[in-house]
């Protein structure tokens, strides 16, 4: 619902901007009979023709359910599933002309690769000659032209996934649905496959909905990202927008290394075009872009991205403290996690908050646990969201932050 409200923000690829709605959900609620909680709650998501949309969310957020609804394997309790601009409610799966790729590939083990790819054509009664051409075309598309006679179990995981893709593309689907297709592949292969998929999608201009829980994947692939949590659509928009201007605390925390610090909104920043306000964030005044409808005195959660924070020796910072406002905090390093391209630090500020700082590998200094440092805010305006969102307020209050920082350090890029 909130996503629908955010329509003006959702960027150039939004439906209504151009093209028809190729596929989507309108106010869809879906509950599995065996479960008490609905898997999707009143979700509206419309995908324009030729658009590449990623459904992103933690496991159990309803991503796959959304996909299965569009494919016709589930029926919504209320709302409309849209295909080609009209309602597809009640249309059986085999009449929808939707191509789906599964995480498990779901290749038919008793058929050769060519027969797998030809399956959809056979079901449509396509003439044999046309089938050959089509199969060859599809296999060539995924660079498996010579594998037609082999069986799926003779192929590597990446090749199997490509066959699954070819099989879905061969029927010339109106929408291509991918359900975590690369989750079972190792990292390098996954990166290659992503590039390939993106290139293919561009080349064919096919409407694509891609489900993943991997935010990197979503950010890299999508024209537009839709973030789901607990069956609700939290936000949709182009990757940059979702990343830099999250609409609520969930989205803010879900993507990247985000610190949310509570602050009361102060007076407007003089001379700024936007409606910016000053806020004291852990005793440091920052220019904050308030959430819509916020007024002076409201408590908001200010979003400080880890990569917009830098560490510096206390002495250096205090020297330059006079100019441009003192946009730094002093704190103590609690935890340092080396990650190659960057080092992640958890720093406890003097006020008691713990923030995560991402220092690029090129940063001049290495810090050790226990060092006293200055945490410098290097971006201009800070984004902010309502703190109460869907999450209890106390999550963003100190103490709890510490534990999440610890987990992030220990668990790696979850």
């Amino acid at each position, binding site marked *: 619902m909130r996503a629908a409200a955010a329509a003006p923000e959702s960027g150039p690829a939004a439906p209504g901007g151009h093209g028809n709605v190729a596929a989507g959900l309108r106010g869809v609620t879906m509950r599995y009979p065996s479960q008490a909680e609905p898997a999707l709650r009143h979700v509206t998501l419309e995908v324009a023709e030729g658009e590449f949309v990623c459904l992103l969310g933690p496991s159990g957020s309803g991503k796959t359910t959304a996909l299965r609804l569009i494919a016709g394997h589930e029926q919504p309790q209320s709302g409309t599933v849209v295909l080609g601009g*009209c309602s597809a409610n009640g249309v059986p799966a085999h009449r*929808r002309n939707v191509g789906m790729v599964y995480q498990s590939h779901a290749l*038919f083990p*008793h058929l050769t690769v*060519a027969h797998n790819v030809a*399956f959809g054509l056979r*079901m449509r009664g396509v003439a044999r000659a046309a089938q050959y051409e089509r199969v060859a075309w599809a296999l060539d598309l995924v660079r498996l032209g010579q594998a037609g006679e082999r069986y799926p179990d003779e192929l590597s995981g990446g090749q199997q996934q490509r066959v699954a893709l070819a099989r879905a593309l061969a029927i010339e689907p109106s929408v291509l649905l991918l359900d975590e297709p690369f989750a079972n592949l190792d990292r390098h292969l996954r990166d290659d496959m992503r590039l390939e998929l993106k290139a293919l999608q561009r080349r064919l201009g096919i409407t694509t909905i891609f489900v993943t829980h991997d935010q990197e994947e979503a950010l890299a692939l999508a024209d537009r990202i839709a973030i789901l949590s607990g069956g609700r659509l939290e936000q949709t928009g182009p990757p940059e927008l979702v990343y830099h201007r999250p609409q609520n605390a969930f989205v803010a925390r879900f993507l990247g290394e985000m610190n949310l610090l509570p602050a009361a909104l102060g007076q407007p920043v003089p001379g700024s075009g936007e409606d910016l306000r000053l806020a004291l964030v852990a005793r440091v005044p920052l220019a904050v872009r308030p959430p819509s409808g916020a007024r002076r005195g409201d408590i908001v959660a200010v979003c400080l991205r880890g990569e917009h924070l830098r560490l510096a020796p206390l002495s250096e910072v205090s020297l330059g403290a006079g100019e441009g406002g003192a946009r730094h905090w002093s704190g103590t390093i609690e935890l340092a996690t080396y990650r190659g391209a960057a080092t992640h630090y958890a720093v406890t500020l003097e006020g008691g908050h713990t923030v995560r700082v991402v220092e690029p590998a090129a940063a001049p200094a290495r810090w050790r646990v226990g060092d006293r440092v200055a945490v410098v805010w290097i971006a201009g305006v800070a984004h902010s969201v309502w703190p109460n969102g869907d999450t209890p307020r106390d999550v963003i209050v100190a103490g709890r932050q510490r534990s999440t920082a610890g987990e992030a350090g220990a668990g790696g890029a979850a």
Partner: protein
Amino acid sequence: MIAGQEAPVQRPAASPLARPLRLALPPLRPPVGGTATWALLAPALALTVMLLIVPTLWLVRLSLLESGAGDAARFYVPSSFTLAQYRQVLTDPYFGAVVWSTVRLALVTGAVCLAVAYPLAVWITRARRPVGGVALWLVSLPKLTNALVVLYGVLLLLGNAGLLNRALLALGVIRTPLPLFANLFAVVTGEVLLVVPYPVMMVAGALWAGGRELREMEEAARGLGASPLRAFLETTFRLTLPGAALALLVTLVWAAGAFAAPLVLGNPALYTAAVEIHTQTFERLNWPLAAALAIVHLAIVAALAAAALTLHGRRATRRRTSPPALSGLSQVQRAKPALSTAEGCNGRPELVEGMQSAHNWGVRDGSTIGTSSGTRTPLSRERNGVRAAAAEAVDRRVWDRTLLRMSVAARGWSFRDRMTGWFGRSMFHAFALLTLAVLLCPLVFSLLVSLTPEETIGLPAPERGLSLRWYVALGRDPLWLRAFAHSLLTAAVATGLAVPAGALAAAGIDRLPDGARRGVTLLLIAPLFVPGAVLGLQALALSYRLGLWGTPYSTGLAHAMWTAPLAFLVVRAALRVTDRRLEEVARGLGAPPVAAFCLITLPRLWPALAAAAFLCAVMSLNELPMALFLATASNRTLPTLIWPQLRYNLTPIVAAASSVLLLLTIAGLLVAAVLAGRLVRRSERPAGAPDTRGDATGIPSAGVLYAHG
């Protein structure tokens, strides 16, 4: 295998027997050496060898003896030698007819069973959670109760004055009673009701084992445009055919051993080899002839089993079946290398390299099968390096020239779709419910009949009410009471021997190297595939030879040998789904192997052990042919006492006795289910364990096991 590399490190001079498990789960305890393994296997092997192999050898010898020729004191002439028995069995048209009726009954029953069991299993695996599990238990109930109860119910239903005929007459559908009884129809009906739980469980097991994978494949097929039925046939059905073939194997084996059904429901022309063995043994007193018949009977069963196994093997290995509609595609592909003048290069990438592009295929395909190929892109253009441009052009061409019939848009579905879908689903549900009803109605009937207040058999009339008089009569009759006590004793002996032997063997079997494991497994489960009449004759002949005939424990021993495979299978299935990496964890924490097993794995096995004990006891309680062969005045079990009553002297007391057996079974079932459920809840299922849908007592697991061979 990694495991193979690790083992020598831990135990440098490992015996050839000591090899880690080859299962899906990683290697467990380091092998403890051959002696320990064989010690685990010894009890079960001893049971099988002493009570199956040795008697079989004696049976072979017996079949080569001269018959006692009417001398009532002698069943055979010791230390003689003749092939006369075989000559008679193989040449006498009478025995030819017996063999034929055996084979015919097996084949017809097998076909009917599979036709009924497969859809029913599909229905069960797709029903909602509690429904499917309950239905599976209902299906297995006839198998767990006494065969005689079932046959008795069928008798009541189909007889000339049976309920079906009476109902049809009363409704005015027919004027004269239908010949539903004492014919092949009746026998097949009875036999199907007795045997069908096995294929249902096995097919359901195969479907459950396929689980999510099969479901996704079927969904994928639907997404590609296959109607629900078509999608099912193209994926799930094809892929579970090997499992179905194994189910057929078991069905054939059991139906070929049919003993009670032909006698109770058939006529002499339908009597099977098992019946004839019994007749020769007890009426003609011609044991050598009976032994020869038994050997021939075994051969029949083996032949049927081999046929079904071949079918299974073909199904399992012949993945490379092209659907007929597509065979042309592979022909064309096969033709490619031939066109490139290299014979025998089929499928070798370096040779096919030159023709990997779509247009190559198109052109070659066209020239091979004679489709017009005028519009295709010439080969050379692509070779000439404008590959990207060409590819783009082809994309556009293929994409634009929408294959007209493919544009199955969302509007393309119709009222017909909805109607066929609705109709198909309704028929499917109706079929499943009807089958379940038919499976259960014999049991319900014999229960009702046992409550009749009349002197004669029949459903209690509503105005006369129900009465427990036949139960009272049963309780007052010392003959029945003694039989009841003896049944319990027999079951206790059988369970007490079979469960420990089977469980130990299950623990030991996976330590054997591949070849030995397969052989030993086959040996251990062999008793399940030997017809009851043959087992009975063997036990009888050997105990007679050794002078043990008539001792009270003989039936219990025979049952122990017969039920040990069940215990073995159930426990092995449970062991395989139990995540024994937990045992490794315990060992890593310092527990010695035996302690790790006892503290970690054993508690998780309790449900399986309980299930195995329950199964063994129920099977023993209800077993007829062996008990019948071994019965003397001193060791009659309940079924052997019901048997003559059922054949010659029908009073409702039989129904009461049958019902007692049925109620005992159901009570045991409930206790086992509750117990197992509680134990399972206490030790939760490992994350990777297959979803057997709360059937904790492992019977479906045994089905899975069968299905995997």
